[in-house]
Structure formats: structure tokens, C-alpha cells
């Protein structure tokens, strides 16, 4: 990236002034090194986002930003419905409400080391993973509508997990305003046998150990200590969300000119929040968020079953569940005025600071857990939303992961799946995956250093480092 396009406004914040069709400036949160390493297309895509109607304050990019389609991955933008603001199917992406959930296990490293192979086998047997895999659940039309309306709460009512889980999920496990009628028959068909499946690509379930604690106070609130074992899973709304993204991207791209919206990039496909199409997408997207929350709740149940077999009596309480591909209606203070805004986070995590009323009481003093996924073999991190005393940044958002350092094609040429599994085994990391090609494409060396990304997030005041997690077992889709 040509850094001269930006003015440095803080040690890890860079502003691009309005130019051309931009309605607001663009701000990238990153160290100089991370900014330099970003593709110029990130700046181009941010400028395009900044040109959308009703955008408020600035178009933001997180330290892990990279070239996406329409929005950059790691992009954050908020829109005011009253000012002609839009909602963008491209700005949410295909994997609606893709996210990370972390469970505590109450187990210590030495407990799990003793049974690692068996635990890996059981998790792999229980969790449907990979292309073409199916779950056991089949929903009736009414069952699907209930799931789309009630999210993780529906899953708990069906016997997957407990009511206590709901407190530790954004929006308590159910996003209001979901509209099952706005979800196409095709989207329903794609979900027919995909409830409780992990998916493929960069989706995974990992057993991890806390190998460093950076903030003892926040770690205590999250009930984490060095040597503790946790489970993290990364997946989204499965076929239903992918199809909703597909359906509305097309419809919005065709309809935009009729709403007077000139799209510089059709992938920015959007509709005014107050238009019938905008409202319909909002209802469908919220249904997809609920589907993702229900899906992660079912996977949680399956993981708990596997753990209970190996460690009878074990409990896996939910630490937190975050979604990083969403548009959410939230209250933020902009230029001293409180406003209801529709915040798009595409590859960015919500990061409410201490004191936020939506946080569970146990975390209210330290801020929202921000769960940052690594890749097989590399560390994951837990951060906490930054104190509002420093001023809310980027509508309380932070990074979401490392981002790829090389394309899938390049990793496939560079890495051999079997060799990657062997190298990780030598480092004590057990991999179970249906596809060695998938393992090669997701090799740890194909990803950027997530450490630099989380450090920049802390330096920028987006979220503070709490703990680092090292993988022990990875179930790879």
C-alpha cells in the first residue's frame, strides 16, 4: 500500500481524506508495517464504501484488513437510516454471522495431554466437518421458521445446551426482527441437512491451551488462567446464510440504479434501509444470524458430548460467542450525539468496552471478550473491548483474525497436506480433517502473523490483549 495516501493521526491510525465521490474520510487502524503490507485495493475499496449514501463518520478498516469483494475484509461502516443510509448484502458477505465461540472446559493441559488422541477421534466422529457432510437434524417448515426467529434460544429449547449459555452470546443468542418470510425456498433447501455442521475451508473446532495471560484482571473475569484448556469453534450460518447472501446480492445489484444509487462496484450492492428491499434483506440477514447462532449452539452440544465421554462429569461453560460478518442496529455517540446506526462489520468483531449495558454482568467491568481465531498451528487470542474512556473507535470494533498471506493456489503449490499434519504432530498438535488438500490450503504458513494484528488492535485502542491460546487439537472442515 502506498502509505503517502494516508495521514498518520495516531501511532496505529491512518486517515485518507475525502476525495472523488467519498462522503466521509476513511481510517485504517494498523501499524506502519501492517499498512504497508496491505494491498492498494484495500484503500480503493474503503474509498468506495465511503461513497455509499448515509454513511456516518468514516469508513474504517481493522489491522487485519485485506482485499475483499466490495467491502474490504476487516471493513466497518455505519449508516443512518434517516439520512438515506443503506444496508449492503455485499457489506455483510456470503457467510452471514460467521463467528467464533469459545468454551471453558475446567480441564488443565496435563488432563487433556493424557487423552489427546482419543478426544481428537471422538470430536472428529461427532462433529460433521468438510464438503458434503450433513447433520442429523432435519427441520420441518415450522421448525425452520422457529429456528430462524429464535436462534440459539431455539437450540436450547430443543435440548442443545443450557439457558445459561444464552447470556454469553451477543444479543443473548437471538437477534430480534428476523423475518423468515424473507428467506427463499432455495436458502431453506440448502440448510435442510446442514444444521450442526462445521463447514469447510477456514472453519474449524480447536482444543486450545491458555499459554499466556496479558491482563490478569480481565482473565480472572473470563475465568481463564495459564494452563487452562478451552475449546474454540469458527463457523457461520452454513448454506442458508450463503444463499441469502447470493439471493440479495443479485437483487440489490439490479435494483440499486432504480433507488438512485450508482454503484462504483456492483459488489457493494445495497438498498436504502427504509426501502422494502432493504427491510426484507435486514429481516433475512437477521434470520441468518439466528441460524448461525443456533448452529454454533448445536456444535457446542456435540463437543460437550465428546468431552463427557472422555472426561465424565466435565462441563463446558460458554465464555463468549462473537459474530464477525454482520450488520447490527446499535446506539453510538457520533460528534457528541447519540444515534441509532446500522453498523456493517465484514471480517470485524464487535468490541464493546467496559460498562456497556449489553455485556453480561460478569464481564461488565472488563469489556466484551473479542475472540480472534488463528489457523491450525498458530495462536488464537482473546482480547477485551477497550475502555470508552479512550473514546469509542470504529463503532466499538476490532480485528477478527490473521487473514491470508498467500492465496489458496499458492499454498497448494507450496505445502503438502500430509507433511503439514506431520509437522504439526511433531509440535504436539493433532489434526483431524477429511481433506489433505484442505489442510495444505489452510497451512499455518499461508496466514499472516496474527500476533502483529492483535498488538496493533491494542495499540490503536480497539481492544486490549487478555490471553493467548495455543492449539492442541484441530478438527478441520
Amino acid at each position, binding site marked *: 500500500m502506498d502509505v503517502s495516501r494516508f495521514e498518520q493521526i495516531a501511532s496505529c491510525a491512518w486517515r485518507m481524506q475525502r476525495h472523488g465521490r467519498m462522503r466521509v474520510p476513511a481510517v485504517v487502524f494498523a501499524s506502519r508495517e501492517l499498512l504497508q503490507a496491505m494491498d492498494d485495493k484495500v484503500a480503493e475499496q474503503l474509498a468506495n464504501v465511503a461513497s455509499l449514501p448515509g454513511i456516518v463518520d468514516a469508513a474504517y478498516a481493522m489491522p487485519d484488513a485485506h482485499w475483499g469483494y466490495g467491502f474490504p475484509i476487516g471493513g466497518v461502516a455505519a449508516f443512518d437510516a434517516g439520512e438515506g443510509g443503506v444496508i449492503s448484502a455485499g457489506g455483510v458477505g456470503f457467510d452471514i454471522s460467521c463467528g467464533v465461540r469459545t468454551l471453558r472446559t475446567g480441564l488443565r493441559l496435563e488432563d487433556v495431554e493424557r487423552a489427546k488422541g482419543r478426544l481428537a477421534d471422538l470430536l472428529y466422529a461427532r462433529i460433521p466437518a468438510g464438503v458434503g457432510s450433513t447433520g442429523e437434524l432435519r427441520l420441518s417448515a415450522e421448525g425452520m421458521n422457529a429456528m430462524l426467529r429464535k436462534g440459539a434460544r431455539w437450540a436450547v429449547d430443543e435440548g442443545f445446551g443450557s439457558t445459561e449459555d444464552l447470556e454469553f452470546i451477543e444479543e443473548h443468542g437471538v437477534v430480534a426482527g428476523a423475518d423468515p418470510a424473507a428467506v427463499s425456498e432455495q436458502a431453506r433447501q*440448502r440448510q435442510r441437512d446442514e444444521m450442526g455442521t462445521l463447514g469447510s475451508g477456514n472453519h474449524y473446532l480447536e482444543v486450545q491451551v491458555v499459554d499466556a495471560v496479558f491482563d490478569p484482571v480481565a482473565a480472572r473475569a473470563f475465568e481463564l488462567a495459564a494452563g487452562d484448556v478451552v475449546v474454540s469453534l469458527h463457523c457461520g450460518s452454513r448454506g442458508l446464510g450463503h*444463499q441469502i447472501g447470493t439471493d440479495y446480492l443479485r437483487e440489490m445489484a439490479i435494483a440499486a440504479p432504480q433507488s438512485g444509487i450508482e454503484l462504483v462496484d456492483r459488489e457493494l450492492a445495497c438498498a436504502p434501509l427504509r426501502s422494502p428491499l432493504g427491510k426484507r434483506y435486514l429481516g433475512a440477514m437477521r434470520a441468518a444470524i439466528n441460524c448461525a447462532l443456533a448452529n454454533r449452539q448445536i456444535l457446542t452440544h456435540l463437543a460437550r458430548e465428546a468431552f463427557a465421554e472422555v472426561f465424565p462429569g466435565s462441563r463446558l461453560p460458554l465464555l463468549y460467542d462473537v459474530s464477525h460478518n454482520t450488520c447490527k442496529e446499535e446506539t453510538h455517540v457520533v460528534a457528541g450525539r447519540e444515534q441509532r446506526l446500522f453498523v456493517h462489520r465484514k471480517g470485524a468483531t464487535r468490541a464493546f468496552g467496559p460498562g456497556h449495558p449489553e455485556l453480561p454482568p460478569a464481564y461488565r467491568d472488563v469489556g466484551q471478550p473479542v475472540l480472534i481465531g488463528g489457523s491450525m498451528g498458530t495462536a488464537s487470542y482473546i482480547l477485551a473491548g477497550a475502555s470508552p474512556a479512550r473514546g469509542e473507535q470504529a463503532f466499538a470494533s476490532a480485528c477478527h483474525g490473521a487473514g491470508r498471506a498467500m492465496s489458496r493456489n499458492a499454498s497448494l503449490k507450496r505445502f503438502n497436506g500430509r507433511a503439514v499434519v506431520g509437522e504439526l504432530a511433531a509440535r504436539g498438535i493433532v489434526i483431524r480433517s477429511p481433506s489433505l488438500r484442505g489442510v495444505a490450503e489452510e497451512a499455518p504458513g499461508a496466514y499472516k502473523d496474527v500476533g502483529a494484528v492483535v498488538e496493533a488492535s491494542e495499540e490503536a485502542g480497539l481492544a486490549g490483549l487478555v490471553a493467548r491460546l495455543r492449539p492442541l487439537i484441530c478438527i478441520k472442515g
Partner: protein
Amino acid sequence: MHWETFEHEADVGVRGTGGTLAEAFAGAATALISVICDPRAVQPREAVDIACAAPELDLLLVDWLNALVFAMATRHMLFSRFEVTVAEGRLAARAWGEAVDAERHQPAAEVKGVSFCELRVARQADGAWLAQCVVDV
């Protein structure tokens, strides 16, 4: 007919070229499969008929590839051979393939959807047709 994939930082681009629009569309479909697995590993045992229509040619490519994504997801199939005809904004195709066999196909990642990024359907200077876009994996 020729097919290839091209680089995108987060995802993968698929591209087909050929003497006719239909050949380019068939090439793009093969490139789509290659994102998931080696198309040569997929036996053409079973046929699925696909039809779509769109107001513009580039949208027709998106619809065609999305129809394949949908067929693969709901039928748990992979495809390797495509007979495509395109006329007046309408596409009719027969896709040949078989059920996913994780052991034999080693499928790396499902395609979630087809984006408008780098989307291009055009006749090139040499008269050949090109059809390409980036898909989300």
C-alpha cells in the same frame, strides 16, 4: 475450451475461455469445480439439468455458477462435465458428476457463493470468449 483459476487475496477467481460463449461458461464451471477438488477425479455418472436466465451476460455467468453451487450443496455432488447452450440471455445446461466421496475427491472447501468481483464476460480481441469472476470459499 480452456479453464484456469486466478489469484485473489482472500478467495479464488475462476476463468473460462473458448470459441463460443457456451464454451467459456463451461470452462468457468470446470474452474469452479477445481477450487473444490481436482475435476479429473470426478466421474460423470449422473446428470443434472440446469436452466437460468438473466438480463445481462455477466449476471448470467453469476446465475449459472450459483446454480451449480446450489446443486452441489443440496445434492452433495461434484461435477466434471458440462454441456452448455446460451441463447438470448438464457442458459440451458446438463452437468455430469457424482456424489461427494471425501476419501477419493479430497474436497478442500465448499464454494459459498459467486461474487461480482472481477466479473467479466466479453469477447476478446482474438475473437475468443472470456467468462470470469471471484468466488467466495
